[in-house]
């Protein structure tokens, strides 16, 4: 046994993030940890890496009990971590990032030449193809992840923790990564893989530990289990299946014609000749790895950025490059892709957050003076209807959990009863309960005869909800499928830049 966690508990105030967790890792093993968002996977690994301290429990490494106070201790014990959000310095070169804090030096001077040589050799040894002098900020995400792994290897880690490493990768890059992990194990490393994607677990791991609500619900040999069992252990119950009733064809609501957008500073093309329509009573899904133009498309439709070419029409009104206000008045509602950046003001009250764009309505204001009584009643009712858990409507939004805030945003946008709803990443990072609820609301809106455009990087979400699926790749529409033709395999190929056969 290389490493063992015994009865690890972590409490934040009254909240127990980890409850008596037992976990072990053998040499040259890939041990996956799976669980829903908030199950306590990341917290557990942060303790192993010295970024948090356990409230109680013991960490045993090579048979000896150890305390790990900070990442330096972890590194000294041969534990390295690749974080979900990359811990890189974009203006630095790849070599500088890899050797960071372990730089080769001549007395006080930084020996950058030696750093580049060492990194180049290390990459070769583990079969990775990188240019040590490339600026990390210019490198693609897949390469940036290699840099993270190289960094851990350079520090001499024998145990590598990877936290949701595939969230930002294209299916092709995922395949490469999983192969690399196997390679690393062959060369003597041991890996802890944190993920919530069960196919990856099945493909690469030796053992798997399932967490739910901070507790271990099972540790299994991968070859003796199956995705269904793991999923049951993760969620604790069978998932609801929302069937889509037959689509009633309606008239066209949103129409995008030949829309192009280029970056003003670099002249790089962001959107190229995008055309599609969304009709009444259908959900059109746009699949794609994030960063392939979805954000720009959202901004083009909602008026947050201007396009150079093409036209956007909503309900027959030409709205290309109009203001957000005009577009919203023409019938747009919009669940934004990042709820904290675009979707809410963290410090403002739930009332203020709920009233955005509605505050100008006749029922809520008269010649510029707000009708607070009506507003408070409306907000109270909506919160009840959409099941947002809060103690008061005057609480500031930052105290809501991610799922509850997302429900608030959904309540705000869906209740506008607009003919068109743009839902971008509507369930990113929310718990299963909130996800099911929001999905039901989207389907209900569709069934009421409104048009919904769903943009999501989560394939399962796209496949579950969409009547039609478009795939975006590098700012272009790479393909289109009817609901019955779409499959995970077909979409994956297009998302990675492959051809539609």
């Amino acid at each position: 046994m290389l490493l063992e966690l015994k009865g690890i508990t972590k409490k934040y105030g009254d909240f127990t993030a980890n409850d008596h967790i037992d976990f072990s890792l053998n040499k040259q093993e890939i041990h996956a940890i799976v669980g829903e968002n908030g199950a306590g996977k990341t917290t557990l690994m942060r303790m192993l890496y010295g970024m948090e301290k356990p409230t109680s429990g013991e960490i045993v490494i090579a048979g000896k009990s150890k305390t790990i106070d900070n990442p330096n201790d972890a590194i000294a014990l041969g534990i390295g971590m690749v974080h979900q959000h990359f811990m890189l310095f974009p203006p630095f070169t790849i070599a500088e990032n890899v050797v960071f804090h372990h730089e080769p030096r001549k007395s006080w001077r930084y020996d950058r030449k030696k750093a580049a040589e060492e990194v180049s050799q290390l990459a070769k040894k583990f079969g990775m193809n990188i240019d040590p002098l490339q600026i990390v900020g210019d490198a693609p995400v897949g390469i940036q992840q290699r840099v993270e792994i190289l960094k851990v290897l350079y520090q001499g880690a024998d145990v590598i923790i990877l936290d949701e490493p595939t969230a930002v990768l294209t299916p092709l890059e995922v395949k490469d990564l999983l192969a690399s992990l196997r390679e690393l194990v062959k060369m003597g490393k041991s890996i802890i893989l944190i993920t919530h994607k069960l196919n990856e677990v099945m493909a690469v791991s030796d053992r798997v530990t399932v967490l739910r609500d901070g507790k271990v619900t099972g540790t299994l040999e991968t070859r003796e289990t199956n995705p269904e069992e793991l999923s049951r252990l993760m969620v604790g119950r069978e998932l609801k299946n929302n069937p889509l009733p037959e689509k009633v064809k309606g008239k066209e609501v949103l129409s995008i014609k030949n829309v192009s957008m280029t970056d003003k500073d670099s002249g790089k093309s962001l959107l190229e000749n995008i055309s599609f329509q969304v009709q009444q009573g259908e959900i059109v899904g746009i699949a794609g790895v994030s960063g392939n133009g979805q954000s720009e498309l959202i901004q083009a439709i909602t008026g947050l950025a201007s396009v150079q070419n093409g036209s956007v029409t909503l309900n027959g009104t030409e709205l290309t490059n109009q203001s957000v206000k005009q577009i919203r008045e023409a019938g747009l509602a919009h669940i934004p892709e990042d709820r904290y950046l675009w979707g809410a003001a963290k410090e403002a009250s739930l009332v203020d957050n709920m009233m955005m764009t509605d505050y100008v309505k006749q029922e809520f204001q008269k010649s510029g003076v707000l009708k607070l009584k009506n507003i408070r009643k409306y907000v109270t009712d909506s919160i009840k209807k959409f099941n947002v858990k809060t103690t008061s409507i005057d609480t500031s939004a930052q105290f809501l959990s991610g799922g509850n805030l997302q429900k608030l945003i959904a309540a705000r946008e869906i209740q506008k009863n607009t003919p068109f709803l743009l839902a971008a990443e509507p369930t990113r990072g929310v718990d299963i309960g909130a996800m099911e609820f929001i999905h039901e609301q989207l389907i209900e809106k569709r069934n009421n005869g409104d048009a919904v455009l769903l943009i999501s990087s989560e394939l399962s979400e796209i496949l579950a909800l969409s009547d039609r699926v478009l795939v975006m790749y590098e700012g272009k529409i790479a393909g289109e499928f009817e609901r019955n033709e779409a499959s995970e395999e077909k979409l994956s190929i297009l998302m990675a830049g492959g051809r539609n056969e």
Partner: protein
Amino acid sequence: MNKLKTNATLFIQPILAVIVGLLVGTIAIMLSGESVAVTYQEMWKGAFGNLYFLTNTLERAIPIILAGLGVAFAFRAGFFNLGAEGQLVMGAVTTAIITVSLPFQGLLNMIISIVAGMLIAGLYSFFAGWMEQRFQINLLISTLLLNYIAVLFAGYLVSEPFRDTSSAGGVPQTVMVDQASRLPKLITGMNLHYGFVIAIILAIVIAFIMKRTTFGYEVKMLGQNVFFAQYGGINRKKTMFISLLISGMLAGLAGSVEVLGMHYRFIEGALSNPQFAWTGLMAALLANSNPVGTTIVAIFLAALDTGSLGVERNTDVPNSISGIIQAVLILFISAKFSFEFLKQRKKEGK
């Protein structure tokens, strides 16, 4: 979160800050070798001792309240307008020049000269906003630099073209304002003038705008999260310009009423040396840009000022003690963000 608890934490912080501020003041008094009890007694007397001192304190609070409201308004919209001093001086010098240049006197003269002062001050602030919007020139720095330019420019105006040449030598100043065009006193024989009424009314009006109007909502949301505001269709440019215009106009009004109600002329340095604008900024910071809070804190800070003038008259402790206490107050209040920050981090930790 429980509302009672929120309110309690809301009050504990400022009260603690005042205690710490006075403690630091105590140390300073001890260092200067005076009796602490006597000094604070003198401070109280200087601020509220009798009707004269009380009205004096309230008079001193007028420009601080108005400048503070101006700064608070811009803060609410998310803009760090550090240019209140320049705007105040521009407003004051404009009013002083217009009122003596108009061919008629009386109420109309008063209104025209005040409005002109506010307008120039508002445009001065607007200009900084325009530079930020159009050329990404940082507002914090530009408003700051514009202060020096405004003070020097006003100084030029009163020392050259508009100088009162009847009184030879001395500090450069404009010609006296006609009796009929002055803001009347609230109580005869006391310094307090109608500017105080204007300031209080405006504080209430602004509180109403912020809390109860759609425009106030837009300003607030823009200040809380620019992206959220844009996402909701709030016109960032328009809201920013209007807020900065209003912010500058309020600071300008602070200067105008001082000229028409107190000094009856523009005297070089009379408005910038007492740091009215900066004290107003502190009031806004301490009250977290709440209009009514800003007014109350402004009166408190004015009392510290007049109180320490009293201290200086009657003891060996210099009046800069009020500056020290005020700065410590802000330092302590600004640490408030940290407590909130910690709470938030714990929440996110799960």
